[in-house]
């Protein structure tokens, strides 16, 4: 039977069918649904890790114990997991191990669009790139076979269009595979220089064996048509090529690293002009050129953003598009916003009123950097806010006692703890505001070590944030509800004045999690002077209406932040008598 599955759902199914028994991840778009759907299979022990490095290390341990394991992350997650990943290449595996890296060309929801195919080359491990959901499912099983046959971790790389597009998939049964029990083998598993030296030789030989094996693997396929144009491509780019250039000859790579030089040469010899169509970096192109083969790639295909049928067609037939040059008038943008009632709005607005520097982190609250709130000054990567706040105070002492790092609860537990440890160790005069909304909201409300619930929904110990930061040596720790603006402001001021690193836990549950709607508010036009102070909080329920402002009763959830901001007392609860 064929069913419609997203690439992510297909990967989960592939893991199930290929007898995976351990799956780990830290959420991150576009990879999150892999673990969220894998938990439906009771045969697989699936769990969230606090970050990608730990997720991979748990998977490595499972592999050491002979289990087939899968670990999933978004592209930047592999930066965090790079340390174990690069040495895992040396140790190789016990049970098969597949690492899914979900890249985000076009940055639909990411801070950069790095091309993770380079990691396969850096780690010298094979890289599979599915071009639709059927392949996404099948390649998991193939990756695990390769992993066990060649004693290597295997990278399965998707992009947003593979992970989040649905297409038809033929389902199969779960296939049994033998679990090799743990065997003490220090020369393989203990990577000290004396052992690693030999493993490096093994890694290099493995790559050559793989290149030879690819030749007969059937993973790369020729499609010969008109031979005037020959295109080497992989992943979703293959689909754009099929559509834009149905007449072209194609070498479709299912395994995009390592390349099989023999195969590339044969294809190059069969076609008049050789092209590479690939998203982002000239990854295939440069390697093909290194083989001494002439090829056209990034001269005509963009290096940034996603490709599309249109972009590929335009690259080959620019003359077709000359007509469409008139640019329509730009329309008002519709960026995402913090929800009505979001506690982050109260925290960010409260900090903005203090007129201080605010280093930011990644999560829903990053939206507080956009106008009209404009309350965050930086965003680099998860966990960066704390170290960066400290760095600011080093750059100029005037920032000491004047700088706040804002970081979400999930992000703090991901990679924020070490930053705070550094602040304590080096006596930084910064305040860290942990925006504790009791969930990983940005990626769709996943649990984390602070929520007391596991991926499978079981109750577990929830880390106590106050005790944790105290244990790190922080001597000022306060918990406050940001929706009480006066108290919030006073608490942060006290923290800023404290001689040493201070932590304010700004605690209020995510409004989408609790879904508790209180009576909405309205603006009394008789009292509203049109000062627009309430507009400055960027609440989607409040809009400019003529010379006054208005609150949309359907969207207002009655959080009461605007009431505390209106200087005229013009905002009132529906149903309460007006004064």
């Amino acid at each position, binding site marked *: 039977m*064929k069913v*419609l599955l997203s690439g992510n759902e297909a990967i989960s199914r592939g893991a199930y069918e290929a007898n995976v028994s351990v799956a780990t991840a830290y959420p991150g*778009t*576009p990879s*999150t*649904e892999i673990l969220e759907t894998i938990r439906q299979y009771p045969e697989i022990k699936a769990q969230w890790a606090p970050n990608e490095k730990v997720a991979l290390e748990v998977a490595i341990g499972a592999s050491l114990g002979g289990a087939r394991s899968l670990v999933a992350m978004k592209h930047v997650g592999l930066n965090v997991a790079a340390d174990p990943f690069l040495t895992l290449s040396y140790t190789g595996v016990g049970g098969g191990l597949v690492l899914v890296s979900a890249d985000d060309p076009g940055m*639909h*929801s990411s801070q950069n669009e790095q091309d993770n195919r380079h990691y396969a080359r850096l780690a010298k491990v094979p890289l599979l790139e599915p071009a*639709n959901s059927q392949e996404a499912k099948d390649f998991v099983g193939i990756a695990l076979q390769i992993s066990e046959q060649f004693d290597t971790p295997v990278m399965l790389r998707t992009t*947003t*269009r593979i992970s*989040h*597009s*649905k*297409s*038809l998939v033929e389902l199969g049964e779960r296939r049994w595979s033998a679990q090799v029990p743990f065997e003490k083998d220090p020369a393989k598993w203990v990577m000290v220089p004396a052992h690693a030296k030999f493993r490096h030789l093994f890694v290099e030989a493995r790559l050559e064996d793989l290149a030879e094996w690819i030749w007969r693997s059937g993973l790369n396929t020729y499609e010969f048509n008109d031979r005037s144009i020959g295109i080497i491509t992989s992943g*979703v780019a293959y*689909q*754009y090529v*099929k*559509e834009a250039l*149905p007449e072209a000859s194609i070498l479709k790579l299912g395994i995009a690293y390592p390349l099989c030089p023999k195969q590339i040469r044969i294809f190059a010899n069969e076609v008049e002009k050789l092209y590479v169509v690939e998203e982002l970096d000239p990854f295939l192109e440069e390697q093909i050129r290194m083989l001494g083969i002439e090829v056209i790639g990034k001269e005509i295909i963009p290096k940034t953003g996603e490709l*599309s*049928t*249109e972009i590929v067609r335009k690259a080959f037939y620019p003359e077709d598009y000359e007509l*469409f040059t008139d640019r*329509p008038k730009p*329309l*008002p*943008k*519709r*960026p*995402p*916003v*913090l*929800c009505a009632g979001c506690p982050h709005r109260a925290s960010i607005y409260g900090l903005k009123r203090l007129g201080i520097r605010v280093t930011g982190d990644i999560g*829903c609250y990053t*939206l507080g950097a956009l*106008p*009209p709130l404009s309350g965050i000054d930086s965003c680099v990567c998860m966990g960066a806010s704390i170290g960066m706040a400290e760095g600011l105070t080093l750059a100029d002492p005037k920032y000491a006692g004047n700088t706040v790092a804002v970081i979400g609860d999930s992000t703090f537990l991901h990679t924020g703890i070490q930053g705070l440890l550094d602040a304590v160790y080096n006596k930084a005069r910064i305040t860290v505001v942990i925006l504790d909304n009791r969930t990983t909201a*940005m*990626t*769709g409300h996943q649990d984390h070590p602070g929520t007391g619930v596991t991926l499978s929904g079981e109750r577990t110990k929830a880390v106590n944030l106050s005790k944790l930061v105290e244990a790190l040596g922080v001597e000022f720790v306060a918990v406050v509800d940001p929706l009480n603006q006066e108290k919030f402001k006073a608490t942060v001021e006290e923290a800023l004045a404290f001689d040493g690193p201070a932590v304010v836990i700004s605690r209020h549950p995510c409004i989408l999690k609790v879904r508790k709607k209180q009576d909405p508010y309205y603006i009394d036009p008789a009292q509203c002077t049109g000062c*627009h102070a309430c*507009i400055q909080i*960027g609440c*989607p329920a*409040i*809009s*400019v209406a003529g010379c006054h402002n208005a609150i949309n009763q359907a969207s207002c959830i009655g959080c009461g932040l605007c009431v505390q901001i209106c200087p005229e007392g013009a905002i009132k609860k529906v149903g309460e008598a007006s004064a």
Partner: protein
Amino acid sequence: MPKVTNIALVGVGGQGIILAGKVLAQAAVNAGFDVKLAEIHGMAQRGGSVITQVRFGEQVFAPTFGNGTADYLVAFERLEALRHLPLLAEQGVLLLSDTLLQPITTATGMAAYPRNIIEQLKEKCPRFASFSAEYAAEKLGNPKVANILMLGILSTYLSDIPETAWQEALDQLIPEKYLAINKEAFATGVGLAAQQNEVAG
């Protein structure tokens, strides 16, 4: 190449566009087609502009399609209809659930919400029909089922997908307790489409 039908569903995060896309794609599968559906998760859900693309035919390659190639554009908000209008093919059909939702940029006065959107849509698109879908859905008891109501309207244009394929898709994807109202919404959409003649440009 055999004909592929391209449909874009556009609107604002929270309007049920992802679900509508799934039902449409499943209906096409039930009708025996090859199908691809492309959606974007993540940031788009926080009240941002949202687009889902569905393609069906004998064989479909790319998950997405570009400007000037949509056979149908189903829009759940005026400004989003205008924003995505370039997707529509020359003879394409625009179906609008006529709602106005201020984006944060215009709600805060940083930009002005265009005044004459309906006129512009009529002028640029000869096959344009507009419906008070949320109003009709509210009368059924829940404005949120406007998404399925619009699919009912769309279904009357897609002669390749039989009624049974739609009903089956609803059965497969809508949770039991919301099924009745969604089926009602779908039927209401079918009825509305029959009443309304396309507004000629």
